[in-house]
């Protein structure tokens, strides 16, 4: 090929190229946004949202029940590592629901627990499942585009696996190319539409991430919103920035994980670290979403709770009932919702774990109902087959 033909080839490819309007996607079926954060490792809901008003709490937790919590009410204190989120709690943009669990019981394996949380079927069916509940939500919705839902990060995120199309991006997938390399790549992919389109989108996404980091949108607002962030450069922040960027566009659903909640040992330090990441993540989402935050619901779900009793190494072991944290302008924050089973010996599940009083799927179900206007039947038959949605949990505005 001579130079002239090369240029012609480039010209043709530019005309037909997604580079021109790399992100011109069809509009999404709804306007509201949903973010599901999977807290892998089993978050200790009793240490994050502390029931200091319960007469049995302090006795169960000799070292963990410290007086350093931030009062939310006479009964509930917030873990001090979530201090940066306290203003959100006070303005009704963040809250918690206590004493929930998936249908998983007794075996307390992280892997099975996470599979069940993400599959969203009953316990038995979830374990062999190949699809997740967010994917079934997409399947039940007409007009879904590949960009409607994004799985972000290194994790597999079975919650979005299934037959409905969904996109995926990891912060490791950074693509830096010289202009010449980019032109030549376009050339060697030009005749293969599958490669041409995927590469063009990859280049566009990577370019967009570098050119328009979320922090550039509104520096003042960002500075104010991010006060208290512990680690601005971490992967969790990059993931949250990326999620916010997508959700400001045509993406409506995003899911990613925060790992490291398995605090068997020295929970004080370990939990503070991951709560710091969670707090950074929520603040980054809020800042990055700007006005869209008002339409957004963020659910932070974990595979199960931890033992009510502290163990012998200043930590806690795998349990059953736990808490779901939530945030976003679309939900009713400023409350610790849910019935309280108590922590007396007879109140505990198998005399060891917080008794779950509600299926955490029903909370997600109601939030999807509120955000996307889904019929109850769609949720109970398609998204979470066999689930009884039960009464509205008080999370919707």
């Amino acid at each position, binding site marked *: 090929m001579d130079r002239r033909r*090369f240029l012609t080839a480039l010209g043709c490819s530019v005309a037909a190229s997604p580079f021109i309007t790399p992100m011109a996607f069809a509009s999404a079926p709804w306007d509201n946004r949903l973010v599901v954060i999977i807290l892998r490792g089993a978050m200790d809901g009793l240490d994050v949202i502390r029931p200091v008003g319960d007469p049995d709490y302090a006795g169960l937790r000799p070292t963990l029940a410290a007086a350093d919590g931030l009062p939310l009410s006479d009964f509930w204190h917030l873990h001090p590592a979530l201090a940066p989120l306290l203003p959100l709690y006070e303005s009704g943009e963040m809250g918690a629901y206590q004493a929930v669990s998936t249908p998983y019981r007794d075996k307390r394996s992280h*892997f099975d627990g996470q599979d069940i949380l993400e599959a969203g079927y009953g316990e038995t069916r979830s374990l*062999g499942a190949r699809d997740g509940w967010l994917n079934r939500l997409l399947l039940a919705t007409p007009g879904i585009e590949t960009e409607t839902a994004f799985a972000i990060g290194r994790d597999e995120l079975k919650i979005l696996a299934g037959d409905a199309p969904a996109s995926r991006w*990891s912060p490791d*997938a*950074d693509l830096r190319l010289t202009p010449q390399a980019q032109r030549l*790549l376009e*050339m060697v992919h030009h005749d293969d539409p*599958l490669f041409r389109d995927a590469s063009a989108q990859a280049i566009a996404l990577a370019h967009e991430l570098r050119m328009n980091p979320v922090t550039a949108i509104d520096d003042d607002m960002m500075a104010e919103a991010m006060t208290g962030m512990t680690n601005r450069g971490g992967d969790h922040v990059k993931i949250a920035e990326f999620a916010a960027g997508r959700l400001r566009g045509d993406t409506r659903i995003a899911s990613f994980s925060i790992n490291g909640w398995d605090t068997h040992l020295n929970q004080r330090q370990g939990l503070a670290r991951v709560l710091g990441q969670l707090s950074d993540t929520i603040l980054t989402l809020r800042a990055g979403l700007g006005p869209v935050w008002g339409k957004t619901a963020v659910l932070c779900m974990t595979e199960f709770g931890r033992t009510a009793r502290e163990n012998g190494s200043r930590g806690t072991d795998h349990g059953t009932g736990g808490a779901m944290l939530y945030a976003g302008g679309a939900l009713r924050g400023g409350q610790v919702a849910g019935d309280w089973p108590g922590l007396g010996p007879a109140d505990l599940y198998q005399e060891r774990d917080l008794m779950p009083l509600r299926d955490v799927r029903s909370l997600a179900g109601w939030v999807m109902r509120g955000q996307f206007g889904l019929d109850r039947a769609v949720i109970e038959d398609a998204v979470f087959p066999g689930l009884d949605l039960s009464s509205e949990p008080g999370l919707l505005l």
Partner: protein
Amino acid sequence: MTFDPFLAAIRFGTGLSPRHAPPGDVDAVLADLSGDDAMAARYPIPPFSRMQPGIATIKEAAKARRAARGTPQEDATTEAYRGLIQAAMTLQRANLHATLGRMIDAPIGLRERLVHFWADHFTIRARGNQVAHGVTPAVEESIRPHAAGRFGTMLRAVAIQPMMLLYLDQPASHGPTSVLGLRRGRGLNENLAREMLELHMLGAEGAFTQSDVREFAELLTGLIYDPRQGFTYDARQAEPGGETVLGVTYSDAASLDTIYAALDDLARHPDTARHICTKLAVHFIGPDPDAGLLDRMITAYLDSEGDIQTVMTAMLTHAAAFDPVKRKVRRPVEFIAATCRALDVAPDAVMALDRRRTREKLTTPLQVMGQPWESPPGPDGWPEADEAWVTPQGMAGRISWAMEVPVTLRRDLPDPRAFVEMALGPHPPEEVAFAAAASENRIEGVGVVLASAAFQRR
């Protein structure tokens, strides 16, 4: 559509290499499957039952650690446990290196490709970090020796492979009226039975019903794994009485032989033949396989009682096998190995990667490309469709790898103009040859060739 040595190496092997002449004819390709397994000898991977640290050692250390909580031994037992997990992770890394070493060094690589095919067909995933290093050793033990042998023999080996039993919950499955089932109040777990019928043997379209699944699950009760003793068959956990699967009633003797008898029948079933041959043809050649090719493979399968070498011979001697249009995309592990071959990267350069470099150059890129090492999405294995691999993120991973990693494995990169023919064969697409020559430097020139659709496909 006649035999093409370059296409043969690309489509049925692990790629072209300046070190290995492409196979001269079909017999040369198939010869890769017979004779000694030189690659396994040169790049050893321990079989599951002999790997160190073994599962039993790790489980005992975990137990000791739990028992020592709050005692003066707490730190020492924790350290001992962590040391074993570290050793397990080191083995897992070495197994990735050896897997790539074999693919890079093999004269043709058909055996490696077949092993990968079967490892994917019989997907095993580790549940938890105590067994995470057991996946590739399980393949080495139960799949590799049979990769070109009798399908039924491989099926028997896989059905008693501890990692498979653990993955699909078989040790938990109790005959509801068995001695142990009654004593423990436990019942059937159908997971292994269902996946074997649907994924491993008959296929989703196969002629089996829920009743077959249940009967087969009853038949499989008694397959146990105990970390200290390894695989065992425990008749006390086996459901008494005969079971009927696909119309055949098997002996009411609770024994491993009864299970083997059923597996042998199912391995010979025409639905199994169709399922296996279709999967092979799609995987090696492309979607919607030629009907004549498929018929021929199925006949070969049934006539040879599932002899895989015979089936592969039937495939490779059919004209459709050498359709010049490359309709499949190399999977990320294949892409990395093919790159190392084409660039003549010494296997030792891969074997020598330390923990950090393995992560930077192999495991993280594989994850971005969509094939995290030993972590397929579910029992049905990696996706077969090209569209699942050629995604924006997947391409970002492939392009970045092509541009950044090769020069770190071999500093003296070849001239991109010559490299095009090395990587793609004697008649590379014009635009790839042009792009290689038009690059600003060797790194980008080589990268553009490796990232091209022509190299990514096979």
